[in-house]
């Protein structure tokens, strides 16, 4: 229960209220759309990558607070970084959300660890991970991803009635 409270802490609420890098890029080099059909979360992500460096990144869409804050914080974390660093962050964030990352060991997540409590809310893990899946798709030239796709690492059936 305490994790519910700590999850909706000020930094996440702030990014939900005032998402950073919100909007679109005019001439993106990479683009992908992420979709979570179970809750209707929808995320459009554009990047401008030059010489393996992410110079600009922007997102927009409709989603819950967890997803929007995760997307906002993700854009600030990867902007100006190399693709390789972004891929490392994607992997570390996924592992953390699924409770498989030991946060006592060295990692590069920094303030993104505010999302660590999501591991105790299995139904909300997909909300936090969606932006990171979408970033991975954009960087690897996949135009759209869905949390219900076959390669979804956290497969779970949809609810009932």
């Amino acid at each position, binding site marked *: *229960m305490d994790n*519910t409270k700590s*999850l909706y802490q000020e930094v996440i*609420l702030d990014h939900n209220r005032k998402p950073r890098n919100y909007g679109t890029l005019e001439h993106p080099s990479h683009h992908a759309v992420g979709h979570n059909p179970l*809750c*209707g*979360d929808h995320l459009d992500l554009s990047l401008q990558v030059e010489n393996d460096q992410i110079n600009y990144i922007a997102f927009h869409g409709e989603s819950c*607070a967890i997803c929007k804050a995760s997307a906002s914080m993700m854009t600030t974390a990867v902007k100006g970084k190399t693709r390789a660093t972004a891929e490392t962050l994607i992997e570390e964030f996924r592992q953390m959300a699924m409770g498989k990352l030991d946060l006592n060991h060295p990692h590069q997540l920094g303030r993104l660890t505010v999302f660590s409590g999501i591991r105790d809310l299995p139904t909300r893990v997909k909300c936090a991970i969606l932006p990171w899946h979408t970033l991975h798709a954009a960087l690897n030239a996949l135009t759209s991803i869905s949390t219900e796709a076959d390669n979804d690492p956290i497969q779970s059936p949809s609810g*009932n*009635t």
Partner: protein
Amino acid sequence: MANNNVTTALKSCDDFDVESIRKDFPILNIKVGDKPLTYLDNAASSQMPQQVIDRWIHYQTAQHANINRAVHYLSEIATDAYEDARRKVQQFVNAREDREIIFTSGTTDSINLVMHGYGRQFIQADDEIILTTLEHHSNIVPWQMLAKEKGAVIRVVPVNDHGELDIDAYEKLFNERTKFVGLIHVSNALGTINPIKRMINYAHQQDIPVLIDGAQAAPHMAINVQDLDCDFYTFSAHKLCGPTGIGMLYGKSALLEAMQPFKGGGDMITSVTFEKTTYADIPHKFEAGTPPIAGAIGFGAAIDYLNMIGLDRIAAYESKLLDYATERFLDIKGAKILGTAAHKTAVLSFVLDGIHPHDIGTILNHDGIAIRTGHHCAQPVMQRFNVPATSRASFAFYNNESEVETLIKGIKAVQKVFL
């Protein structure tokens, strides 16, 4: 206090002692963290009273064996108890004969049975099936599978802004290609009670059979299949205080007899050789394999329990509880109720300005409040109202005013988090 009148009205249900009823449900005493449970997700699944739990335990401790097979003591007792449960279901919906009641694993299974048993046999290319915008996915997907296999067409009845079916549009959908109608009795997403008797009557004027998905109706009102004159009616036990994994399908005997079996196997035959199998009579033709015997007996016990309280009294109490909750909702700024039909069960589907339902659900859970958030397996309803999801509080006869207050307080606390 604007809600004085409603409170008085609720109190005037004075022969309905909700506090004493609550004592029958042990699960209502649990805590979620340090908060008492406020269970408002009854449309997804209701809770089980001690009487049903006791019946289940008695079966497992003193009566269990496989049915319809052996001549020994336990098998006879188990078979009697299973068939006794069938008669309880028959009386519960006022079917003519007990053989018109088929035990299934639930509403979804029942609809699939009708799709395979009736649809695949009697629906052909270019035939039309009428469904409504309010259908649960369980009464959409099987028919889509059939439509794809046969080249049949699905026609959909629209709803108005209150979440009520457009009956004129429904009647205009009929033509010489119409072969089947599937209707949800009560919308799981909005609570709308549809005028199914009138709709069945219209379909019958054109000789079209009608299946009613009663999953959200049977727990809240008395069902009379002979009065409705529906051809099929189905619901699940776990939404009316019974166990999961068991449900019923009512079908008119002539239709059931004309249908092909859905599943093949033991218990559904009279004789088998490698050349030819003769199927058993209904209802056994549709009950292949060992059924959920304990589930069926628990289903019967749940019906006994509901009968003891009385469906009419349950409907009256829940209606007043809905009025109370609807009026208390006016207190919440920025809240909008979806589904404002004139005839509704005690379901409040709502959206809050600027707050996603999943955030609402997660934060309410912190206060021990269980509601459903999402599309409620009714995505066409969500599309109709142009929302990705809603939050849904669904009440049962064991919920009370103080739980409504806990919900209102909880929602206001959610709004504070997002201020």
